């Protein structure tokens, strides 16, 4: 089987998900890794540039990042090939069987796709073997798309402070209404800092304007599956749970012992978070320092 991996870079380095996909593709057979060069290339322009390379491949894999999902869908449509998004498992064969979630994570579906096909794959779905050889990435130039031009970038006021994007993070610390106000987010940030974590939020928090929309986890926000998800003061509405219950380890901290988050967690702490979280941050700092 021949697989085309569409790689993405961030800060000059290939994204981790691109490396995960290249390693997975090598397991499946022959692999070619390409990337679109140039700044601010529209999805349509990227899909057009990829179409020729993709026609020779049985399978196209794209990381399910914001940009990747966009390009993958347009490319599948352009090629007229079956497509599945945010895939978490791939079973090879004459037709692929893939696993993906539906109904905002309330259902796990097995989807059959005749080859050739296009998939976007969720970050962290496949392990990155230690010492995996860095793939050769061939550059592909894209021509501008007719009728659409880039104007400018507007930075978000409370932009991620250089943190890892939520969807790709291995560790996430998320805050809910239990934090009582945006002025208390330092608690979340300090814990996230010692863990090297991304910051997430419940919908109640983004709707109240305490945190930017892009931090929202759950239905109408991001679906995440990090190694560790720490929920601080999040009661666990079904729409939020749908977006994070595929996390490997879930920690819930809440004053209310009946919070639904405790029903899905691996470790729950019933405590006042204003008292508990600084102590946890200090403990984890000690553990990280080898104490």
């Amino acid at each position, binding site marked *: 089987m021949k697989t085309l991996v569409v790689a993405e870079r961030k800060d000059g380095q290939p994204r981790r998900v691109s490396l995960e996909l290249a390693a997975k593709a090598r397991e499946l057979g022959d692999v070619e890794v390409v990337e679109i060069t140039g700044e601010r290339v529209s999805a349509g322009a990227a899909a057009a540039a990829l179409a020729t390379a993709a026609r020779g491949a049985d399978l196209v894999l794209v990381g399910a990042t914001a940009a990747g999902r966009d390009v993958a869908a*347009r490319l599948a449509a352009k090629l007229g090939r*079956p497509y599945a*998004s945010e895939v978490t498992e791939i079973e090879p064969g004459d037709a692929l069987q893939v696993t993906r979630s539906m109904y905002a994570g309330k259902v*796990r579906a097995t989807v059959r796709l005749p080859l050739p096909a296009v998939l976007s794959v969720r970050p962290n779905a496949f392990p990155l073997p230690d010492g995996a050889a860095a793939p050769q990435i061939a550059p592909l130039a894209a021509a501008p798309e007719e009728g659409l031009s880039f104007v400018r*970038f507007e930075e978000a006021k409370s932009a991620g402070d250089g943190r890892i994007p939520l969807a790709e993070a291995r560790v996430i610390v998320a805050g809910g209404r239990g934090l009582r106000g945006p002025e208390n987010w330092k608690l979340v940030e300090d814990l996230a800092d010692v863990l090297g974590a991304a910051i997430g939020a419940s919908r109640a928090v983004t709707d109240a304007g305490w945190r930017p*929309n892009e931090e929202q986890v759950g*239905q109408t926000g991001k679906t995440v599956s990090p190694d560790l998800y720490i929920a601080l003061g999040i009661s666990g509405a*079904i729409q939020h749970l749908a977006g994070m219950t595929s996390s490997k380890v879930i920690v819930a901290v809440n004053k209310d012992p009946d919070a639904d988050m405790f029903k899905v967690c691996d470790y729950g702490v019933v405590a006042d978070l204003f008292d508990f979280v600084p102590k946890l941050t200090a403990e984890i700092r000690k553990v990280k320092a080898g104490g």
Partner: protein
Amino acid sequence: MNILVCLKQVPDSTVRVKVAPDAKSIVTDGITWAISPYDEYAIELALEHKDADPGTTVSALTVGPARARDALRQALAMGCDDAAIVVGEAAGLGLARALAAAVRERTPDLVLCGRQASDDDQGFVGMALAEALGWPHVASVTAFKAADGGGIEIWKEIEGGHEVWKASGPVLLTVQKSAKEPRYPSLPGIMKAKKKEIPERALSDLGVDQAGPVAEVVAMQPPPARGNGVILKDADTGALATELARRLRDEAKVL
């Protein structure tokens, strides 16, 4: 400006989804149906544009089963000017082609879709519709406005901020979220919506090719059960913190 919003009727997001005995669909008996959440944001964005510029018309369109008429009625009650349904079952590329055929009859300046439907969560049909129309698209949009000197300025949410794009001609946007929550229908809106005709056509009348390779759901199951977690409580918070950090390091091995 003429805006067309394509929407899908899906199980309401507060519904507890249950896998049916055939293990490849969900139980739909007694389910509450609603407009897919991102499609509601798309309607809201379109209506905000109409509020600011009364010369705007906002139309709603769906391809789906007859029950999806209720979703259009809701869209009209929110303030859309007109709505139309194409009755039939289609998915993926076939659905995009059907929508494209219906869009072409209307010549809108702008087509809005939600960024993904909350049932299959694919995020495909919007892009596939743009491709079928031969239009550019911009995904994950949170705002748009008519640009000075013609064209449409579009705000696309990306990591760390927004990219602003400009479309000089017709364009398709997939909507991420509007700044405001989707409006509730007003009582006069509901009364007006009741009186409006919703023209109906059969999918088979569109003469659209439904053939081609498709992704097919062959099995569904509930996500792996979670729970029976270790609950730490009734102790000094310092002791709880030490205990949790130890378990995260030694048991869960995530530190």
